[in-house]
C-alpha cells in the first residue's frame, strides 16, 4: 500500500506531543479497526452553554468536532468509554447546537445523518471528562472493535431503507397525538385573543400591541405591492404629452437614449472584437 508521507508520519504518534489548538480545542487521534494505518483527528473541548439548565453540570460535557460520517453513537460510546462512564451522546449537524423547541418525534423533524458531525458527550464524572482533555497523544484511540463495528456501505443503506418503511398506524397515532395537542394550543390562543379586548370580571382590559385595527403587516412583499399600486395610479393621473416642453423633452430623452444605446453597442462590439468573435472561419 502506498501510503503518503504524512500518513506514515502520523502512524507514529509517539513523536507527537499533546496539541492544544486555538479556542481550547485539543486534537484527539482516533483510528478504526479496518484501517489501522490511517489516523484521523477529532477535536474536543469542554462544552459550554449560555443558558444553564438546572441539570447542567459544567465540565462534564464535551463538545466533539469533526466526527467522521461513519461514526455512530455506539462508536463514540466505545471511544469515550475508555475514560469513564458515558452518560449520553448526542449527534448534531452543526457546531452551534440549537436548543430543542419541540418534543422529539420519531417521524418528523429528523435531521439527515450525513456528512461530518458534531457531538456532545456527557460523562458521569467530572474527572473522566478532564481525562479526555489531558489525554496525551501516545496512541490513537479505537473507534470500533469487533463487538462495536462500523456499519457502512451496503449494509447501512439496506438498514436505512428498512428503517424508513413506515407502519402507517403508528405514524397515524403519533400524528393524532400531536394534532390533538396542537388543536388545544390553537384553541387556547384563540381564546386568549378573543379575551384580549374583553374586560374581565373586574372590568380590566388587557391592552396588547395588537389592537382591533392592527394595520398592514410591513413585509417586503406588501410594501412592494403598495409601491406598485401607487406608481400605477400616479401614471394614470399624469398627462405626459400635454405641454410642448414635455414633447420636446421626451424627444430629447429618446435621442439621448439612442446615443447611450449606441455607445453600449459599440462597447459590446469592442468586447466581441477583443474575443475574436468576428472570425467566421
Amino acid at each position: 500500500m502506498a501510503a503518503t508521507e504524512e500518513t506514515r508520519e502520523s502512524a507514529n504518534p509517539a513523536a507527537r506531543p499533546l496539541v492544544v489548538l486555538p479556542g481550547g480545542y485539543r486534537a484527539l487521534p482516533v483510528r478504526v479497526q479496518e484501517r489501522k494505518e490511517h489516523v484521523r483527528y477529532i477535536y474536543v473541548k469542554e462544552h459550554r452553554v449560555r443558558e444553564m439548565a438546572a441539570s447542567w453540570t459544567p465540565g462534564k460535557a464535551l463538545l466533539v468536532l469533526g466526527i467522521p460520517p461513519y461514526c455512530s453513537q455506539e462508536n463514540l460510546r466505545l471511544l469515550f468509554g475508555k475514560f469513564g462512564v458515558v452518560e449520553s451522546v448526542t449527534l448534531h449537524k452543526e457546531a452551534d447546537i440549537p436548543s430543542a423547541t419541540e418534543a422529539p418525534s420519531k417521524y418528523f423533524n429528523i435531521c439527515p445523518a450525513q456528512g461530518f458531525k458534531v457531538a456532545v458527550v456527557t460523562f458521569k464524572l467530572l474527572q473522566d471528562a478532564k481525562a479526555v482533555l489531558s489525554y496525551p497523544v501516545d496512541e490513537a484511540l479505537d473507534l470500533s472493535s469487533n463487538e462495536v463495528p462500523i456499519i457502512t456501505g451496503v449494509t447501512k443503506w439496506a438498514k436505512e431503507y428498512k428503517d424508513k418503511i413506515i407502519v402507517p398506524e403508528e405514524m397515524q397515532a403519533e400524528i393524532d397525538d400531536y394534532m390533538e395537542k396542537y388543536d388545544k394550543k390553537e384553541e387556547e390562543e384563540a381564546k386568549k385573543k378573543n379575551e384580549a379586548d374583553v374586560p374581565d370580571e373586574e372590568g380590566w382590559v388587557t391592552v396588547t400591541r395588537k389592537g382591533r385595527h392592527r394595520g398592514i403587516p410591513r413585509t417586503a412583499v406588501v410594501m412592494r405591492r403598495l409601491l406598485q399600486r401607487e406608481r400605477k395610479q400616479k401614471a394614470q393621473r399624469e398627462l405626459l404629452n400635454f405641454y410642448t416642453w414635455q414633447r420636446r423633452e421626451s424627444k430629447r430623452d429618446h435621442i439621448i437614449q439612442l446615443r447611450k444605446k449606441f455607445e453600449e453597442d459599440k462597447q459590446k462590439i469592442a468586447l466581441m472584437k477583443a474575443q475574436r468573435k468576428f472570425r467566421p472561419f
Partner: protein
Amino acid sequence: MQCSTMITITLSWQDVTGDVIELPCAGHVGDELQFGGLEDYDADTMVRGTAVTNKDGLNKLGVLVNKPKSKSKGGIMTVSRMRNAPGRRGGGIHFLPRRKVKVIEIRGAKGKSVELVKQKSDVKNGEPAAEDVRFDQVKNEAKNKMEGSEVVMENMEVEANGDESAGRVGETRARGPPQDEELLEVPVVDPEFATEVDPGRERLLRLQVEELLKEVKLTEKRRAGIDEFVQVLRGLLADLPTLPPVQLDDTSWLPAGLCVPWPPGPALPSGVRMSLGPPAEVKIVGSYATSEVIRPDICIDLMLTMPKGSLQERDDLNQRYLRKRAVYLAFLAAHLKEERRLGNLKYTWLSGNCLKPALLVSSTGKNIRNISFRLLPRAGLERFKPSRFHPIRNNVRPSWLSVAAQDTDIATATSSTEPLPPTPCYNAAVLNDLFLEKHTRLILETFSSAPACRDGLILTRIWLHQRQLHQGRGAFSGFLAAMLAAYLVSTGQLSFGFDSWQVFRCLLSHLATSDWTKQGITFVKNLTLGMPILQDFHTVYDVVFVDPTGYVNLCADMTAATYQRVSREAQHALSVIKDSLVNPLQTLLLSSCPFVLSFDHIFSVKAGHMPAASERLAPNKARLDYGGDFVAASLSPLCKLLSRGFGSRVHILDHMLIPPPQWELNDLPPSPDHMGIVTFGLTFDTACAFSVLERGPEADMPEVKPFRELWGPRAELRRFPDGGVCEAVLWSPGVTVAQRRLVPKLIVEHLLCLHGGIPASAITYMGGFLDPILQSRIKGIEEGTGEEQLTSIIQSFDELCRQLRGLEGLPLVVTATVGTHPALRHTEVFPPHPTWLNPKSCCTSGTCDSLAPDPNKPCPAYVPAITAQLRLEGSGRWPTCLSAIARIRAAFHIRLATLLRQSHALVCQVSQSHVDVYKAGLVFRLSVVASRELTVQRGDGGDAERAAELVKDTCYTPLHGSHICGLQGEFPAFSSGCRLARRWLAAHLLSDHVPVEAIELVAARVCLHSIGHQPPGSPEAVFLQILFLLANFDWQSAPLLINLGRPFKQNEVHSIESSFLESRESLPAMFIGTPFIPRSSWTTKHPTPQILRRLVLLARESLRIIQEAMIQPLPDTDIWQAFRPPLSLYDALIYLLPWHLPRHAEALDKPAVLLPRGVQPAPSGLSLPQLPPVQYDPVEQFLKELRAAYDDFALFFHDRHGGDVIGVLWKPQAFLGYPFKPTHAAARNSVDSTATSTSGISTSACISANMATILADVELLGHGLVRCVESPKNGSCIGDGEQ
C-alpha cells in the same frame, strides 16, 4: 403665405451607361412639379414631385419626389438633396444670411454637379424679391432609394431671419437633440424592418456586420502584395518560350515525370497538333477582380488567353479544346516549375469539373502567405462561335467516342438515324471559359460605384461558405451570387441605395421565393433569331440562369436538389433574421452549419457502383456530356428518382458537394470518384415520413403505370378502409417507433437496387445509428427505443389520475394530478418498465406490503419512483404552523393509501412526504401539495430559501413539464433526441452536474430555433444539434432564450438582454430563459462555470467524432468513442462492484454477465404483489454521503446509468493548511504541531486535509460497493476491497 414661395430645383439622372441628364423644374409650394427630360429615355419614366415646406412654416423647403416608374434600368438619381436627419442620407444646404450658401459635406460625398436655382419671396417684408442663387460644384452625392413609393427631400433650411442663426444653432446643440454629425454616426434603421424587429437590434447588427467585413476583407498591404506578385507572374508568363507545334498524344517534350492533367475519357486520335507559347493575354478575373474575395482561403484567378495557332477549326468538337487546354496547362507547369519566385505548383479542377483542370500556384511572399493563384487557360473569344454551343446541340460525337474507346456499345445505342443527343454540360463548360472575362466585367461595371453592394455580396459569400454550398461541382458559388445580384439590379429589385445587409436580404428573398428549376431567369430581354429560348435551357438543364450573352447557363452543373436546398436555406435564413431570439449574424454568418447537421438522415453510396447506375438511369450521358464523370452524371437522375419515390415524405433531398481535389504535377489526375462515396442527406416531413403504407393511384387510373414502374414488384393492389382499391406499397420494418423510423432506409435501398442496380451492401445508411444506446437491455423488451414504454407509462398514470379523482372519503377532493417526473414528459433516458420482484431476492420488512433490500444478495432491480403532485381543493382549515402542516400532509397520505387499497386494490407504501402506489408494475410517488406551506414560508417566520425551493417545485416544475410534454406532440423526434443527449451527458459522468431541465430546454431550443433549414426530424439530428448548440453558443455573453409556451415579447427580450450584461457575474453560468420562467431557475447552482467549460469541450469533441464517422463511414471508426468518458483527467477513480449496481445493464457497453436482479413475471390471481424497494440504488446513496461529507474537498462524477466508476477531482485549495477553526474541523486529518509553544497552546497550529486518508474513508463509507480506489496521477492504488 406658403404659395408665395417658389422654388426651382434640378435633378440629375445618371443612367447605366453613365449619361447624365438634367431635369430642371420650378413651382410654388404645394404645386405638383414635373421633371421633364427623361421622355427620350422611356415613355413611362416621368419624375413627379410636390414642393413642400415642413410644418413649422417657411424656413424649410423641399420637394417630395415620386419614384420614377419602373424601367429606370438601375440609373442613379442624383438630386440636390438637403437633408441631415436620422434615417436618411444626403447632404444639406443651409441658407445663411445674405443668401449665401453653405454646403455641409457628408461622408461618402463624391463630386457631382448639381445645379440649384432658387427664387424666393421675402416673406418677412411681404414684397416678393426674386433672387437667383446659383452655385456649381456642390459636392453632394445623394442617392434616392428606389424601392419606396416616394422619396422625401426636405429640410432645405432657409433661415429667413439670418442674423441670429449661428449662435442659436450652437445653443440648441449643446442641449441635445439633433447634432448632425453625431446623428450621422447612428446607423440608419431600415423603416420597413423596424416594424418587424427592434431597431436597437438592427443597429447592433449593422455594427457587427461592419466588424465582420473588416475581418474578412483583404488589407491594403496584402492587396499590394498580391498585385506585385501578379506582376511577377505576368513577367514570367510573357517570357515563356514559343514551341513548334506538338502532337497532342505525344508528350515526350514534357520534362520527365510531369503529367498532363487529362480530362477522363478516351485519348484523341493522333494527328491533332497545337503550338505552344506565351499567353496572348493575362487578366485577373473572378472574386479578386470584383473585390469580393474573402479570407482565409484566398484564391486569385488569372485568365490566360491561349496563343494564336494553338487552336484550329472544329476544336470545339469532341473535347479537343479541353484537351488542348490541359496540354497548355502542362506546358505552363513545365516552365513555371523551376521558377524560384513561385511557390508550390499543383493541379486542380476548376469548380470541381473534371473536364477543366487548372494550375494552382501558391505564393511565396511576405504579405501574401496562404494565397493561391489559379491559372485558367482559355480560347480567344473570336475562336468559337457561341451559337455552336446552343444548349441542345451535340458537340461530342458518339461515333468519335466509340472509335476512340473501341467500344461498340455506344455506336449501336445511338444509330445514325436518331438525332444526336445534346451535350449541355460540355457546351456550358466551354462557354464558361469563353465568357469568364465578360461576366467579371459585368459584375465589376454594375457594382463599381456601389461598395455597399459589394459588401452585401461578401456577406452572401460567407453565408454560402458556412453552409458548405460554395465549392464543388454544381455548387452555388459566390460568382453565381454576384451574377444574381447583377440580375436583380437589372430588374430594379436591388438598388444601389441598399446597404450591405439589405443586399444580403434581397438576394436571400429572391432565392427563397423563386424556383429556377421551373422558371429560370435570364438577363436577355430581346432574343435574336437563333438564340436559345428559356424552354431550350429547361429541357436540358435542371436549373436555369442565363447570362447576358444568352448562350451560357450559369447553373449548368447544378442539380435541382442543390438548388432546392439553397432555396430552402434562404427561406430559413430569412426566418432567422425575423426571429428576435436568435442573433442572425451568429447563426448565419459566424458559425458554420456542416452538411450532416442540416439533414435528418444521411446515407452514402459507394462510388464504385455509380458508372453502372448512371448507365442505367441516363445512358451515355456520363461519357458524352460529363466526359466520364459518372458520379456527377448520376447525381441528378438519382436525386430525381429518390425524390419521386419519397414524394411528400421528404422536404429536401440533396447530395454533398465535394470540394475539388488538388494533386501534384507528377501525379495523374484523380478519378472523378476519388472520394470513394457519394453522400446524400434527407430532411423529413415528420408528419408522414415514416408511414408504412404508400397509397398510390386508384386501380383504373392512367397513373398506375408509372407507379408500377417506379416501385416494381413492391407495388400491389390493396383495398382501403374508405372503399378505394388502390395501388399501394407496404413497408414492413417492424412494430416499434424506432423501426418505423427506418422506412426511408427501405425506400432508398429498394429504389437504388431496382433502378440503379446498387445493392444494399453498397449503401451505408446513417439513420437510427444511435438507437442501440436507448435500447433497454432487460430481457423481454430488447427492441425499440423506449417510446412505447413512455406512452404506456403515461397511460397508466392517466388511469391512476382518474382513480384518484374518483376517490370518495378524502377530506378534500383531488382537483389535479401533475406529473413531475421526466418519464411523464417523454424525456427519461430509460423509461421505467413494469417490474415485479421475487420476494426471495429481498428481505421482507416490518410490513407485509413492502420488500427491503438484502445487503447479502445482489441488489434488486432498480424501480424508480414516478413522481407526481396532487392538488387539493382550497381550504381555509390548513394549520398555520409548518410542523403541523407536515403532519396533516402525512395524514393525508395515510388516508390516500388506505382508500386506494380499499377501492382499487393497489399496494401502497406511506411515507411522511409522499405515498408510493404500485400500479401495473410501476411505482408512482404521489405527494400532496399544501398550498398553505408556501404562504407560511414566505411569511414572517419562514425560510426564504425554502420558499424559493417550494416555488420551484410546486409552480415551475409542473409548468415546465407541461410545456416540454407539448413539444413532443409538435416534434416527434424531440423525445428521443433529448434522451440521447441526456444519455451522452451521463456517459460523460456529468448527469449530476447538469440539471435535467437544462438539457430539456436546450433540446427545446434546438427544435424551436433550429440551425438547419428546418426543425430536426430524427433523434440523431436533434442530438447533434444539441451538441452543436452546447459547443458553439456564447454562454458568457448572451442569454439562451426560448419561445417555450408562447413567444417572447419584444420588450421582454430587451429587458432580459440588457439586465443580463449588467449583472453577468451574479447570474448562472448557463442562463436559459423562457417566457414563463425567465430567470433561469433551473441552472442557478449547476452547472458551475468549470463544468460548463468542460461540457462545451466535450460537446465539441463528440460532435467532431460523430460527424467524421457519418461522412466517412469507415469500418474501424468507433462512434461510441463520443460516449466514452476520458478517465485520465480525474485525480482518483473509485471502481464499484457490479454486484450492487442495480442499473448495471444500462451501461453503454453491455456487461458480459448480467446478474439476476430477482425480476419475475407479473403475478397472476388475486394475491397482491409486494412493493419492491423503490428508488434504491446503493451508488446514489454512496454519492449522497460522499457529497455531504467531502463537498469542500472534491467533486464526484458518476454515470448514473450503470457506470461502475466514480471520478474524483480534488479542489486543490481545500488541501492547504488552515489555522484551526471549528468550521474547518471536518475531514482535516493532519495537524501541523511544529509551531506549538512551550506553554502548550499553539496559536498558529495548522490543520490540513490528507488525500490518502480521505480516500481510505471513502472506501470505508462504500463498504461492500467499492472494489478499489485508484489515483492514477500518483500511480497508486489505495486499498483493495474484497473481490
